[in-house]
């Protein structure tokens, strides 16, 4: 038995036990199995990661899954430095979120269901990061999408939640379609779907073109863009970002685990994993960087005016995911994965702290909160740390990773690099601004809800606060593995990942790096200070700005009307076709015609045949005798 196999299969076992016996036997003890399983797999992950640190990289096929002609897929695992990082993030942050869920979901009638799906999600996520071929990646990819659907629609009796689940699933279809095509192209080109031979051979096809609808297209670019299409869906980048904010209808631990720390980062993981393909296609790299940068700015500006505490954090997630893609797009995959890693901690913390707040006030609207500082000190402090980390305040985890990305963008030297550098620097202003707007509106000032609500305010139980405290420690400390060399650190993180993702070429001096760092830090601090002025000192300013720039405000508040745009250009025509064409002609005439016509014809035939059955035994006997006569005559002929 190989130790690393415990990592994915313990959560799977917990899922099976809970889903089979949860309703009748286990009920409110479901967390025992799930939490034990994920903590077990965390321990196994730590052991495996230690092995990887000592240079032991696992790549083996365990079982042949599919053989069809030359197409062969194995259930195989590849555990290298990149996987090790993901394993620690998924199981480590996952464990804390599981423990938190015990308190948060307490007393819910779907308690066992929640833990089953959460365990199943972790299983698929681990398969996604551990697989050694594209089909395993795809298996995990679809599996986490399915669990995401289950968990967003967890409160399925609420229409908004059920709709959000469907929306997430359908929007992801668009991305996954491209991703599947990408995998097909890889198989057609290389004749295999295993990572190692594909990445080894990819150099041989550089510059080859393929005829696509009459255009000569660069093969590598095509594959890279198709794969990126999947990443756009899963990691909620423009134009497929619309599902993530709605996904906030799910329970808060789900938002923290799936829609902040793990699943949405699968796109970044995949791009980093396929760096050999992306590196050969400057076009695809530029697309990745630009899409990331645009999403990052786009989401950050929306987050500034939203009032739903979870949606603010969701847009913040979009923004940070965009930054990770920026890093990948300029070739600094290590920086992107580093940001993924720190982001998992501080964003999970933001979500869980927000969940703790929601647990106390029972709604999501920050305009009806305020002054919670004195009721919920632990939540306040931990969320404050998370916001500092997310905002990129020096010394905390988020600072190092974000700075690494900004510097990589600048130092890549290309014009696209400079373009995304400007955007990301602008985002560095918005991130602390909206984070602290949220903190100040939630925790400072006077409580703006009803007296009844104020009466019920309380700090959450320790099963909720302890994970918050541990994550807060993470949000401060996990960045110290990757302190850049100019600040006297060893950049251990980038060194660790170097065998997998390589190291980008930087064109810049240490002095420039300091200047960039100083610039982005001062911009971040400016954002923080402006948030403090707006929402602590002169609280009239935001109202006045919203009134004077009401057009901009309304555009931002309505999220650039992207949902409305999709509604008119995609959903309306689809529904029209569905109702007036498919509904009226295909369904009513063709399908129902066949379905109803066949039984009707059989019925008529049977009606005619019925008359033969008179019920008189002698009639049958005559027919039989006649039959015998005929046979005898035929034989004697």
């Amino acid at each position, binding site marked *: 038995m190989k130790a690393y196999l415990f990592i994915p299969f313990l959560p799977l076992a917990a899922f099976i036990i809970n889903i089979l016996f949860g309703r009748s036997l286990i009920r409110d003890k479901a967390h025992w199995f799930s939490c034990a399983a994920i903590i077990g797999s965390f321990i196994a992950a730590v052991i495996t990661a230690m092995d990887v640190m000592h240079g032991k990289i696992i790549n083996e096929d365990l079982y042949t899954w599919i053989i069809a002609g030359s197409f062969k897929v194995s259930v195989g695992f590849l555990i290298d430095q990149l996987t090790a990082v993901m394993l620690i993030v998924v199981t480590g942050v996952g464990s804390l979120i599981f423990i938190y869920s015990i308190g948060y979901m307490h007393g819910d009638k779907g308690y066992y269901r929640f833990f089953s799906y959460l365990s199943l999600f972790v299983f698929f996520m681990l398969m996604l990061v551990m697989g050694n071929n594209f089909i395993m990646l795809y298996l995990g990819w679809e599996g986490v999408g399915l669990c995401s659907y289950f968990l967003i629609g967890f409160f399925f009796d609420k229409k908004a939640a059920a709709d959000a689940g469907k929306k997430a699933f359908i929007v992801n279809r668009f991305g996954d379609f491209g991703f599947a095509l990408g995998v097909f192209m890889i198989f057609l080109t290389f004749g295999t779907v295993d990572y190692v031979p594909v990445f080894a051979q990819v150099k041989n096809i550089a510059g080859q073109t393929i005829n696509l609808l009459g255009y000569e297209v660069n093969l590598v670019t095509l594959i890279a863009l198709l794969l990126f299409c999947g990443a756009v869906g899963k990691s909620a980048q423009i134009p497929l970002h619309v599902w993530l904010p709605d996904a906030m209808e799910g329970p808060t631990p789900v938002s923290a685990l799936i829609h902040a720390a793990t699943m949405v980062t699968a796109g970044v993981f995949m791009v980093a994993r396929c760096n050999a393909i992306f590196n050969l296609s400057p076009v695809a790299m530029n697309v990745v960087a630009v899409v990331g940068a645009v999403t990052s700015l786009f989401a950050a500006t929306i987050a500034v005016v939203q009032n739903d505490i979870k949606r603010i954090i969701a847009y913040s997630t979009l923004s940070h995911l965009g930054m990770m893609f920026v890093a990948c797009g300029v070739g600094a995959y290590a920086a992107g994965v580093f940001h993924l890693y720190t982001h998992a901690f501080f964003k999970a913390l933001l979500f869980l702290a927000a969940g703790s707040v929601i647990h106390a006030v029972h709604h999501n609207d920050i305009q009806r909160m305020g002054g919670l500082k004195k009721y919920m000190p632990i939540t306040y402090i931990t969320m404050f740390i998370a916001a500092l980390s997310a905002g990129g305040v020096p010394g905390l985890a988020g600072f190092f990773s974000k700075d690494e990305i900004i510097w990589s963008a600048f130092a890549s030297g290309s014009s696209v690099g400079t373009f995304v550098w400007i955007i990301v620097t602008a985002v560095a202003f918005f991130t602390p601004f909206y984070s602290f707007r949220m903190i100040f509106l939630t925790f400072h000032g006077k409580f703006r809800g009803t007296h009844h609500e104020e009466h019920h305010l309380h700090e959450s139980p320790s099963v909720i606060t302890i994970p918050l405290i541990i994550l807060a420690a993470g949000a401060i400390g996990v960045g110290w593995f990757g302190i850049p060399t100019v600040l006297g650190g060893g950049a251990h993180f980038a060194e660790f990942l170097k065998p997998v993702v390589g190291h980008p070429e930087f064109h810049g001096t240490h002095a420039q790096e300091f200047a960039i760092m100083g610039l982005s830090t001062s911009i971040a601090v400016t954002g923080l200070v402006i948030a403090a002025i707006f929402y602590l000192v002169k609280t009239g300013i935001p109202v006045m700005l919203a009134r004077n720039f009401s057009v901009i405000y309304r555009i931002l508040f309505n999220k650039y009307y992207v949902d409305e745009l999709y509604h008119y250009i995609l959903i309306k025509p689809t529904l029209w076709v569905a109702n007036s064409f498919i509904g009226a002609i295909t369904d009513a005439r063709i399908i129902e015609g066949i379905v109803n016509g066949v039984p009707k014809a059989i019925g008529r035939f049977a009606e005619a045949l019925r008359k033969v*059955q008179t019920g*008189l035994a002698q009639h049958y006997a*005559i027919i039989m005798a006649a039959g015998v006569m005929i046979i005898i005559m035929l034989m004697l002929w």
Partner: protein
Amino acid sequence: MILSTVVFAIGVFGFLSRRNIIIIFMSIELMLNAVNINLISLSHYLQDMRGQILAFFVIAVAAAEAAIGLAIVIALFRNKATAHVDEIHEMKG
């Protein structure tokens, strides 16, 4: 052989033409016995015992059939108060 053919033909004719269920029964017995005569005579011609063995089986089956058939006829007569087959058409489709 001619005897058996004649007996069989009488049986078939009786089975098809009479309305009384008891007569129909007797016709069936006639047909079975015609078959028996046939079997035994062929057995004699061919010097093979198998035909006679089969004839015994047929007699045994005919006895069982007569017992069950008569029981059914009695049950039917109690319910319907008739022995005419053309008045029994519960199985009409």
